[in-house]
């Protein structure tokens, strides 16, 4: 076997290997194998066309076109690459769209180098929409998601990337990185996660229906709602019960209590009234006893006064009959006699004695009282003149009354003085005594008004 055949065989071997890998969408592996096939034999058209197709399959359209163009140059006729190129030429708008996507991808690389990850992510999302088989765009987007900690989005993008190329080294490394990150995250809230899983298990019910496994929530919404309604009913019932107690039972209890209290108050009031009545009766009895006591005492006093009056009358009579006593001495004894306490005979005897003794006694006492007044011995004057006025109020045409009033006035007793002086005016209005009394009364009034003003 010459070297040419060996080389062609080797080239075919790697082509077959590339074809196998391409069939299971192991694009990276297929590219390596097909590149080797072409390194052995650059004229292996099928290998080159397949290489172009593999590039095309993972979105690298320009690389695919390069391979197909070379293929066409190497074999212008009876070449599958011609149909590939014709298809692309027929869909010029599609190629333009792909070219725009590629340009955007290159721009995204610039954004990334300038820390414009946000802009790059936005552009790459658009690229994956307009050019859905562009593997590099998915991979770059996944890298940016990982960098910005958007792991869920990274997972989605990497899943799509893996479907385009199952053994791509970058895709697999990113997926591994993502798995490690999630593993670390899962370890931290392990207990919480386990609980959640358990809870989730409890919340679901699995059963087989024919060939299908059906998973449905253990607690259906109706049951949950029923539970909530039950709780609401309990709360509502408690509230209604409380309202009934508050609005119906409590007032009834209060009313009963107030009735009881009113009855007690009435009972106490009746007791108080009864006690007051008893007290009143006792007080009245006591008052009657006191009144009786006062009457009896008065009767005793009256009896004593009567007895004393008789004794004094007898004494005065004896003194008068003996003739050894002066009129003023007998008059003193008679002044102590209460005429009203005497009987008729007693009063007759009293009148006889007074008519005989009082005029002389008045003369004696008047002279004595006037003398005392003139020497400013007012106390004695008042004492003596009082006896004269008692015996004969009109003695000396009111002279005794006037002198007695003046003595009281001088002695600092204007009230008594006023009484005596007024009496002078009443009894003897048109006399000198009355005129003097009037003058003194005016002076007393003036002095009283001055004292009031001061």
């Amino acid at each position, binding site marked *: 076997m010459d070297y040419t055949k060996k080389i062609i065989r080797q080239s075919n071997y790697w082509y077959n290997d590339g074809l196998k890998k391409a069939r299971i969408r192991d694009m990276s592996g297929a590219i390596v194998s097909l590149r080797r096939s072409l390194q052995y034999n650059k004229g292996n058209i099928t290998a080159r066309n397949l290489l172009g197709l593999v590039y095309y399959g993972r979105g690298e359209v320009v690389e695919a076109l390069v391979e197909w163009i070379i293929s066409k140059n190497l074999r212008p006729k009876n070449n599958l690459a011609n149909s590939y190129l014709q298809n692309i030429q027929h869909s010029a708008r599609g190629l333009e769209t792909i070219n725009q996507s590629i340009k955007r991808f290159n721009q995204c690389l610039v954004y990334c180098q300038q820390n414009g990850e946000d802009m790059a992510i936005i552009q790459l999302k658009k690229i994956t929409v307009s050019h859905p088989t562009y593997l590099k765009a998915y991979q770059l987007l996944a*890298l940016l998601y990982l960098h910005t900690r958007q792991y869920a989005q990274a997972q989605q993008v990497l899943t799509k990337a893996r479907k385009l190329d199952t053994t791509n080294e970058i895709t697999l490394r990113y997926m591994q990185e993502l798995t490690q990150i999630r593993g670390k995250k899962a370890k931290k809230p392990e207990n919480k996660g386990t609980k959640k899983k358990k809870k989730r298990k409890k919340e679901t019910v699995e059963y087989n229906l024919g060939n299908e496994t059906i998973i449905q929530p253990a607690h259906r919404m109706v049951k949950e709602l029923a539970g909530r309604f039950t709780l609401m009913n309990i709360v509502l019932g408690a509230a209604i019960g409380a309202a009934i107690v508050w609005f119906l039972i409590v007032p009834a209890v209060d009313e009963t209590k107030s009735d009881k209290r009113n009855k007690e108050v009435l009972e106490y009031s009746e007791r108080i009234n009864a006690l007051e009545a008893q007290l009143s009766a006792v007080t009245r009895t006591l008052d009657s006893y006191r009144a009786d006591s006062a009457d009896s005492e008065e009767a005793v006093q009256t009896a004593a006064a009567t007895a004393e009056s008789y004794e004094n009358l007898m004494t005065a009579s004896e003194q008068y009959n003996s003739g050894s006593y002066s009129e003023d001495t007998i008059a003193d004894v008679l002044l102590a006699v209460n005429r009203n306490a005497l009987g008729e005979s007693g009063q007759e005897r009293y009148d006889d004695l007074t008519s005989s003794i009082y005029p002389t006694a008045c003369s004696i006492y008047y002279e004595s009282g006037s003398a005392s007044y003139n020497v400013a011995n007012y106390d004695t004057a008042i004492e003596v003149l009082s006896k004269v006025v008692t015996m004969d109020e009109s003695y000396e045409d009111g002279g005794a009354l006037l002198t007695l009033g003046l003595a009281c006035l001088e002695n600092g007793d204007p009230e008594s003085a006023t009484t005596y002086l007024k009496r002078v005016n009443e009894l003897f209005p048109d006399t000198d005594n009355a005129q003097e009394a009037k003058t003194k009364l005016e002076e007393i009034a003036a002095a009283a008004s001055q004292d009031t003003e001061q």
Partner: protein
Amino acid sequence: MLNYEEELKKFKPSLEVEDIEDAVYQEDLTDMSDLLKQVMDQKK
């Protein structure tokens, strides 16, 4: 742990449609037969 900067460097700009001609010319088409011929020429 991925190094973002290093990973970013691994991404090279893709070829655009305008670059196809240059890419075709720059494509290394040397294969094993060409190498053998060069070796044999050198031996001669």
